[in-house]
């Protein structure tokens, strides 16, 4: 009981990102630049989950995301669920949705792409959301979910 308490220790105000696949937790940290935060952050990973097998959870005190920012994590954690907390209460639940365009974040799979050889920010249009397929704005090659690499 005590252990469980530690994991789910409540925050007063902020955001809980739940149902992150265990393998995607650190990518979520990178995408949202959580390592740069100075407010209180609690992570749990490899927790048991009926749906995912092993899941991760992130609790962010006093942090609220814009939809455009949080939706970026859908690339690696489409199953993620957000709980928005105000005064210890869940006031809103959200799911994440893959955006139509991805700027930065992902590396193009094509080693001969200009973005992998010169200082150019990557840019992709999302051609498929269910099974993620990103089309590079520059070299026009497809980066799919198996070879998504977070910059």
């Amino acid at each position, binding site marked *: 009981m005590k252990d469980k308490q530690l994991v789910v220790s409540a925050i007063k105000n902020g955001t809980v990102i739940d149902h992150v696949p265990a393998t995607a937790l650190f990518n979520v940290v990178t995408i949202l630049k959580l390592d740069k935060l100075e407010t209180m952050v609690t992570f749990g990973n490899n927790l048991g989950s009926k749906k995912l097998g092993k899941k991760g959870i992130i609790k962010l005190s006093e942090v609220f995301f814009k939809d455009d920012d949080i939706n970026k994590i859908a690339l690696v954690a489409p199953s993620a669920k957000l709980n928005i907390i105000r005064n210890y209460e869940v006031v809103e639940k959200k799911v994440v949705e893959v955006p139509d365009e991805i700027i930065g974040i992902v590396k193009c799979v*094509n080693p001969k792409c200009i973005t992998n050889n010169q200082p150019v920010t990557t840019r992709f249009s999302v051609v498929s959301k269910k099974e993620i397929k990103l089309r590079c704005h520059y070299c026009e090659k497809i980066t799919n979910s198996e070879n998504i690499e977070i910059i």
Partner: protein
Amino acid sequence: MKNKSLVSITDFTRDEYLRILELAAEFEKNPRQNILSGYVIATLFFEPSTRTRLSFESAVSGLGGKIIGFSESASTSASKGETLYDTIKMVSNYSDLIVMRHPLEGSARLASEVASVPVVNAGDGANQHPTQTLLDLYSIQKTQKTLDNLKIFMVGDLKYGRTVHSLLMAMSQFNTTFFFISPEELKMPDGYKMHLDQKGLEYYETNDFSEYVREADIIYMTRVQQERFTDPIEYERVKNAYVLRRNMLEGTKENMKVLHPLPRVNEIHTDVDTSPQAYYFEQALNGVFTRQAIITSILGIK
């Protein structure tokens, strides 16, 4: 089309293709005019391609334009580590239009976004080479008197061959029926076949040429390169199976023409060269008129 860069064949619409071809026919009748006098065209070849560069330079010179640029990056600031971004910013100041060839894929799209003048892509790695496609369309239209409802055979390396991919995308707007003839390892990628499915166009895939060749209006040959094969024995086995010989053209349609983006290695036997159906050398000449049409329409002169 004024001030519009040409990076990818899909940047232009069907009507824009047709307008370019119409202009190219005008230039074929009258390739020497002084309409580019006072214009400076930059030809930036970060990797050598003598054939393409000479075609562009001949096109510009014939119309009285001035050319600045380089033919390989070894002698330029790019070899000293200058980024493409910086080079293009600089060259934009000195020219009215930039023609660029670069080994990295996506480089032309980047250049078109950085440059204050329009950019014409003369090849970005294995990605796009749209002026080649437009000259192919011109050659097809000129020899067939139409682009509509043709049967086009694509032979050889259909997996990596960017010219056949771009030609497929362009011709898919003209109700074309495609025949793909290639070794198993070098088949047309699924993405392009899906595109044809979406457009409701017919295509046939085979590794046997002779069965259907009598139906062809155009045979578009490509090089089968050894380095594309993971298994060298497989290359040895197939390399001669995709060589076009004159006797294979027996019984084909009179209007049928054989095209090839050149240079060829051995995939078209020299005995085809004297056939009235061989068109690859004229095809290359059509490149000059097509490039004159592209440059003058982008500059807003035509």
